[in-house]
């Protein structure tokens, strides 16, 4: 008891000398991202660093949320601010490249202990831009097709089967186009991978403008397909329509799907399938601005957030995300049941072969613009 009290006193003293710091974490993404930081990560961090507090700021879902963080950085860089008001930011993959290229980010991965627990390519390369050292993956997110087994007995397992199914069941498939969120964009990218040949080239580059000519057929098909589907208002809109039984099938983010199911907004019988050749997913990254006001503490925060225990208990068990660091370190910290829960509908083999990346940025933009011209 005495030692405990002594420890507490010592901790209190060190905290006192270090001074109470408020760490600002800006996060793009849905409400669950803010919840994750506020309700799970921050209490652990504050316990480990007495006196310091974490403040989470949600900047809105989807690309728009990450874009707002980028614009904030830009405004501060242009204004010549030397001590930035964000210590840690959580951004979508697509925005890490521009942030690193413009010199907004600190190179910190080698400075934290958990940096070597990530071996996958996505920690080094974000849609064609080298981000090695600038990012730590928080988690991986995947899109898949959600369906209602009462209405769809044999779910399609490939994009070709899906197209046939949608032709036979007009308006029963729903997606949100490309302007209402990333689940629709991901569906379109998967479509191009499936019907326009070289998915690998699109994902790895190099960029060749002539490639775009090969997509015309795929987009003509997609236009006919889209005429036969229901267009939904946004990522949440697709889930909404599934929940109300207005559509039988549609592309969704896997983590959002599980969160809605747990939150009682989806019928519990809905299932997921990942059609071949696959659909893109993306990681969310932790980044630290180059001129963050509390850089040392920010690194500590990211180290905690990417530690195997937190990745296991927080990312996988509590929030149903695929881990950001290598699976082997996370698996060891979880019971086999908890681990296998991640793969209820989509097995590890499926994920290994059909979880794709988004195309590199120039292809990504070219595909979106081709969609705007040829499908809408």
């Amino acid at each position: 008891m005495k030692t405990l009290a002594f420890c507490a006193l010592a901790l209190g003293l060190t905290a006192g000398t270090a001074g109470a710091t408020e760490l600002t974490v800006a996060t793009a993404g849905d409400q669950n991202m803010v919840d994750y930081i506020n309700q799970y990560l921050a209490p652990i961090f504050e316990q480990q660093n007495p006196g310091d507090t974490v403040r989470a700021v949600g900047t809105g879902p989807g690309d728009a949320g990450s874009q707002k963080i980028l614009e904030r950085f830009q405004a501060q860089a242009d204004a010549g601010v030397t001590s930035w008001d964000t210590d840690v930011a959580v951004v979508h993959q697509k925005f890490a490249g521009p942030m690193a290229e413009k010199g907004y980010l600190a190179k910190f991965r080698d400075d934290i202990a958990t940096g070597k627990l990530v071996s996958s390519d996505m920690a080094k390369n974000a849609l064609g831009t080298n981000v090695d050292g600038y990012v730590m993956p928080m988690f991986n997110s995947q899109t898949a097709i959600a369906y209602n087994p009462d209405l769809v007995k044999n779910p399609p397992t490939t994009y070709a089967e899906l197209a046939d199914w949608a032709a036979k069941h007009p308006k029963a498939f729903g997606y949100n186009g490309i302007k209402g969120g990333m689940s629709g964009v991901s569906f379109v990218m998967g479509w191009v991978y499936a019907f326009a040949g070289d998915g690998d080239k699109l994902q790895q580059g190099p960029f060749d403008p002539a490639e775009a000519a090969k997509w015309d057929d795929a987009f003509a098909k997609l236009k006919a397909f889209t005429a036969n589907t229901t267009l939904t208002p946004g990522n949440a809109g697709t889930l909404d329509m599934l929940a109300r039984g207005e559509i039988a099938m549609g592309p969704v983010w896997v983590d959002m799907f599980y969160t809605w199911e747990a939150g009682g907004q989806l019928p519990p019988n809905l299932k997921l399938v990942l059609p071949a050749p696959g659909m893109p997913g993306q990681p969310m990254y932790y980044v630290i601005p180059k001129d963050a006001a509390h850089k040392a503490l920010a690194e500590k925060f990211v180290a905690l957030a990417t530690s195997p225990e937190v990745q296991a208990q927080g990312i996988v068990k509590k929030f149903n995300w695929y881990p950001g660091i290598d699976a082997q370190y996370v698996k060891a910290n979880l019971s086999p049941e908890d681990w296998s829960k991640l793969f209820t509908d989509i097995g590890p083999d499926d994920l290994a072969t059909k979880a794709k990346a988004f195309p590199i940025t120039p292809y990504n933009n070219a595909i979106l613009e081709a969609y705007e011209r040829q499908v809408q």
Partner: protein
Amino acid sequence: MARVLSALWWLPRGLVLGLLAFAIFGPIANLVLWAVAEKWYFPHVLPLQYGFSYWAKVFAPRGDALTSLVTSIVVACFVVAVSILLAIPAGYALARLRLPFRSLILLAFLIPQAFPNLTVYVNIARIFYQTGLAGTIPGVVLVHVMHCLVYAVWIATAAFAAIDPELEEAARATGAPPLRAFVDITLPLAMPGLMASAIFVFLESLDEFTGSYFVGAPYVHLMPLQLYTAGAGGNYQIASITALLLLIPSVGFMLVVERALTADVLSRIGR
């Protein structure tokens, strides 16, 4: 006979009013239901399970709901005060004095509402970072004031235009200095109109999101920010509860200043 006829009139009247009530309260009922729904999905017409677990989440110690609500109200009150202080001289001048380019000046106040503001707020944020206004309450208040001035100035102009100028002139004729005459005679008469403009300014400020994010966050945490994250992400329970919380100051403020909305003032807005 006349009595029967007038009672019969309640049929179409009741029907129309009932339809209107459904159109207005239907969506609001939807909001209230989502605020207390624990489980709600097809094919159930009403929630499967009711409860307050999401309220607990909103009011959780780290949920920030109460502090951001208080900050939002504080900011809105400041915005009202500053806007009205700016609008009183401007409205008086626009209503009483012959100004060159009067219509253009009135129009200038409309522009912040007219341009899709996403791209503009990024530029404002840059300027605010340079001047140190970013992340401060005064910064947020300024951005809101800019956004709300159209209501403040237009309605204040209307309020002053509605007052008979001869009253003030009579006071001046008895020897009262101009400022005195204004404070003693014109201002009290304009008060109801100014209160009306306060309502609109208050509501606009509570509703504003883009500027609050770019200029305020992370240090000034306002309620619409939370509402936006929850709403756009499809977290209906949290969004509905937050929306209901935002209703409290709005309706409260309206009730307080309601009687200020006199017909005389409303008829002159923007003219």
